[in-house]
């Protein structure tokens, strides 16, 4: 009988403790960020889709068309093409396409690049209605930046 009453009282008390916790939170300020109106600063480490970097001196890409990124990519989403041009040492980049529909942002391509010609972008507002919108021509993007 005493155990029975004790269980009722302790059980009811536990319910009131729970109610006390939630009502305390009810009066505390909200912790969410109202996303489209407010944004949080991004960490410098954020890994978005890859992007070509430019050489500080020439303003051109650092890519030497070695194809290491293409080989490192687990899902074959990078296509690199280059051609020999007269008067230029090595190959010149003619095409750098990223198929972002397949990319898993692992970063193996960035690590494999011998000249640090690719880096992670900070783009995250990526929404579209067509699949083709996610086949990025990174060379064009770099030229558009200049």
């Amino acid at each position, binding site marked *: 009988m005493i155990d029975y009453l004790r269980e009722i009282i302790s059980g009811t008390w536990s319910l009131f*403790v729970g109610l006390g*916790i*939630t009502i305390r939170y009810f009066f505390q300020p909200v912790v969410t960020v109202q996303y489209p109106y407010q944004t949080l600063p991004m960490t410098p*480490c954020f890994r978005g889709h890859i992007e070509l970097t430019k050489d500080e001196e020439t303003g051109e890409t650092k890519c030497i068309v070695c194809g290491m990124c293409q080989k490192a990519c687990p899902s074959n989403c990078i296509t690199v093409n280059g051609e020999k041009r007269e008067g230029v040492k090595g190959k010149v980049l003619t095409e750098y396409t990223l198929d972002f529909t397949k990319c898993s*942002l692992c970063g*193996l391509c960035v*690590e494999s690049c011998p000249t640090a010609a690719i880096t992670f972008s900070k783009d995250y507002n990526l929404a579209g209605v067509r699949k083709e919108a996610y086949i990025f021509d990174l060379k064009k993007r770099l030229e558009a930046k200049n």
Partner: protein
Amino acid sequence: MSAFAKSEANETFVLNLGPQHPATHGVLRVKLTMDGEYIVEAEPVLGYIHRMHEKMGENRTWAQFLPNTGRMDYLHALAYNHGYVSVVERAAGIEVPERAEYLRVITAELNRVSSHLLWFGAFILDLGGFSPLLYAFDDREHILDLLESVTGSRLTYCYFRFGGVYNDIDDNFVPGTRAFIKRLRDRMPMYHNLVTKNIILMKRLQEVGPISAEMCRKYGATGPVCRGSGINFDVRKHEPYSIYPEMDFDVPVYDQCESMARYMVRMDEIEQSLRIIEQGLDKLPEGPVMAEKVPKIIKPAKGDYYHAVETARGSFGVRVVSDGSNTPYRLKLRSPTFSNLSLFGEACQGMLLPDALALMGSLDLVIPEIDR
């Protein structure tokens, strides 16, 4: 025949729980044969998101499989990273710098805490309580921020590399993690007062969902499921890897074999993980985070290698067979939840539907990891 005579016909019916059902946390389907609300027979049906990770591994170079590891158990991705890089390092004989090992353990334990917090919220959600989920997510968000500042992603991490980690921590990581440890330790009593000591929750979990130690052994259950049944087995203690032998932590074991025991194991594990992280931060040595002599193209010597790690859900083992080429000859992944789910069919026989779902929640299922 009078209306109240017991009919000879089989009065059971089949209830398809899933593949789209709020309690199965993903695309798991359980075929239940029910007698009223009592479960006569339960058969988990798998394979809805089978992605052939093992076969994929055989068609990729050793390094290219790394991003896949984070996509099996997306809640404790770093432990899967850890298991795979460890087995390849063992196969290829790569030495890992000490700082890298510490970073691996610290981040993996942070990830374990975030996984347990999410499980906590989702489990209470299964039982019908909403607010604890949001409170747990509030804390988990801090972990994700910390891990994002190190790994660059928030969920499917791909941070560990053969011979080290992808990049070093920044200046804010150590103070930020210490602040988080303090914050979570201050919050734990709130969770216990709001949830653990709640009479409704206690009535729903205590003496409900028995899984005997015998059954755990039979099905190969590991992790909190077997530790809630009184089996003291934790890969971090019993087959130590990385720098876990240097850490001082306890393995919480409860022998009540009920849903509440599994709940308590996980709640205690959060505190133990915080202890490990704290010690790791104290002892964190200076130095490189990547081994110097890692070959560009890894070709482990011929052989058969196995390495197990303790994930938030149990023991995850990777077995690789190398034929000396740049791709694995065979890659076998032993995922803990697959075994943990297998016992569900036997354990829930004769149980009521709400209790069976509480039992299923206490197994902490992550379906992509079961299906791989």
